[in-house]
């Protein structure tokens, strides 16, 4: 029981890493990124390639995360430019189509180029006892990394002027422009950061489990579900939703199987839209 709970939290933190990126890109750029899971995969694949070239696993991981970030940068500065020319619904729809197409492209390329790929850092790590439950240190490490990323992100958004400018755009883009804040430069920065966070999720997935090239769509869908449940403009809501859905997913997969678990997660997202359309932690207004 408790072991499942811990597993759920570990998985949930990974989902949150993906979902917070989706939330930030949506809140700032008005684009729902359907290639977000693929950012994670690209990060993982890049890390694995670096390892196969003989790089040290830590450096390879950082390289993978960087690669995901650079991919995000390229997507923002090229692929999404046509979408940014529009506003509101048009931008959202065009963004959906462009990123969906891009995700097919990445999936197709990776499946063709690396059909048997799987990233798994075969680190021989000991088990530790935590609250009487045997835990793999790799899982703990993955969770610690995710929590550190969130702590840094929150501190950045809360304490620095640049972080505040990002929140100001999410809250009121017109107001931000009146302060002299350039929304498009800030958007590029956020797509870069969000893609790196996806890269972290991809690389750490290889730490406690294995990452395959076919997992992109699954990552994207789970990330979207978490973002919806958390409220697409709420960052702490998304963090909470990730952990919650991670736990639900692990329990459901264990007791009723992975397929039904998916249906349960979808129902969860639908129920959230019906009951709390602005997300779990949304303030009543």
């Amino acid at each position, binding site marked *: 029981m408790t072991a499942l709970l811990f597993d759920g939290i570990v998985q949930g933190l990974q989902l949150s890493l993906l979902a917070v990126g989706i939330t930030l890109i949506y809140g700032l750029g008005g684009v729902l990124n359907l290639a977000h899971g693929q950012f994670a995969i690209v990060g993982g694949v890049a890390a694995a390639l670096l390892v196969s070239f003989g790089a040290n696993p830590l450096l390879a991981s950082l390289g993978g995360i960087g690669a995901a970030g650079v991919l995000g940068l390229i997507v923002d500065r090229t692929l999404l430019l046509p979408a940014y020319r529009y506003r509101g619904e048009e931008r959202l729809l065009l963004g959906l189509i462009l990123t969906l197409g891009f995700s097919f492209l990445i999936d197709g390329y990776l499946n063709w180029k690396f059909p048997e790929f799987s990233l798994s850092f075969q680190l021989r790590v000991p088990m530790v006892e935590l609250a009487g439950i045997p835990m793999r240190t790799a899982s703990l490490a993955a969770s610690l990394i995710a929590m550190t990323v969130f702590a840094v992100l929150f501190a950045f958004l809360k304490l620095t002027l640049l972080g505040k400018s990002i929140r100001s755009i999410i809250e*009121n883009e017109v*107001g*931000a*422009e009146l302060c*002299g804040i*350039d929304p498009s430069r800030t958007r590029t920065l956020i797509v870069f950061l969000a893609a790196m966070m996806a890269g972290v999720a991809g690389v750490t997935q290889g730490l406690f489990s294995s990452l395959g090239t076919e997992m992109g769509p699954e990552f994207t869908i789970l990330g979207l579900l978490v973002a919806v449940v958390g409220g697409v403009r709420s960052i702490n809501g998304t963090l909470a939703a990730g952990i919650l859905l991670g736990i639900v997913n692990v329990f459901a997969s264990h007791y009723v199987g992975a397929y039904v678990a998916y249906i349960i997660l979808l129902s969860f997202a639908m129920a959230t839209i019906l009951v709390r359309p602005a997300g779990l932690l949304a303030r009543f207004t």
Partner: protein
Amino acid sequence: MLVRVEALYAGYGSTQVLRDVSLEAHPGEAIAVIGPNGAGKTTLLKAIVGMLRPSRGAVRYEDRHLSGLRAYQVARLGLLYVPAERELFPTMTVLENLQLGAYRNVRAAGLQLGYVFGLFPRLKERQRQLAGTLSGGEQQMLAIGRALMGGPKVLMLDEPSTGLAPKAVAELYRNLSQLKDAGLTLLVTEQQVPLALSLTDRAYVLEQGSIRLSGRSSELLGDPAIKRAYLGVV
């Protein structure tokens, strides 16, 4: 000349709102644009600050043309706009709202903050409070304070008295006249015509998208046509 609007045409989609509007403001001058609802006052300010692209005509500020500049670029040049909606960041604190106002003016932010708090002591008392929890009058102070943090050369206010209680309006206009006395160039649109005319040096009357009348505010205040149309005097 600090701001000069030359034969400006602007609108939304195929709807033409402004027709051949010209206007100018000298440094240190306070200008009012008055007129009925729907005359195009907000459209005029939006076209000046780059929130709306004019279809014809030009806006000159200092020695440059503003055409083609985005709103954030115009703000960086020192032309700061306080819209009627205020456009604050409601879930951020008063202090954070002010800090963001100085986003492009970080080095002077400390000095500027002292000035804003001196002008609006209420904002100093409430600096840790969320902007969304302020009263209407305080939100207007914050919107003006945030614009002042950017170190404006021209402060443009769209109907600043909107939605405020009479007492808050009186306080607001006292603050605005302090800013004017400090030498700041003001451009104010207003439906409360007597207030706007007593604050400003010169005024333009905008009706159905065109300037119908302009002159010294003190003279317009005594003009029979203005009295009939805007001051409720028969």
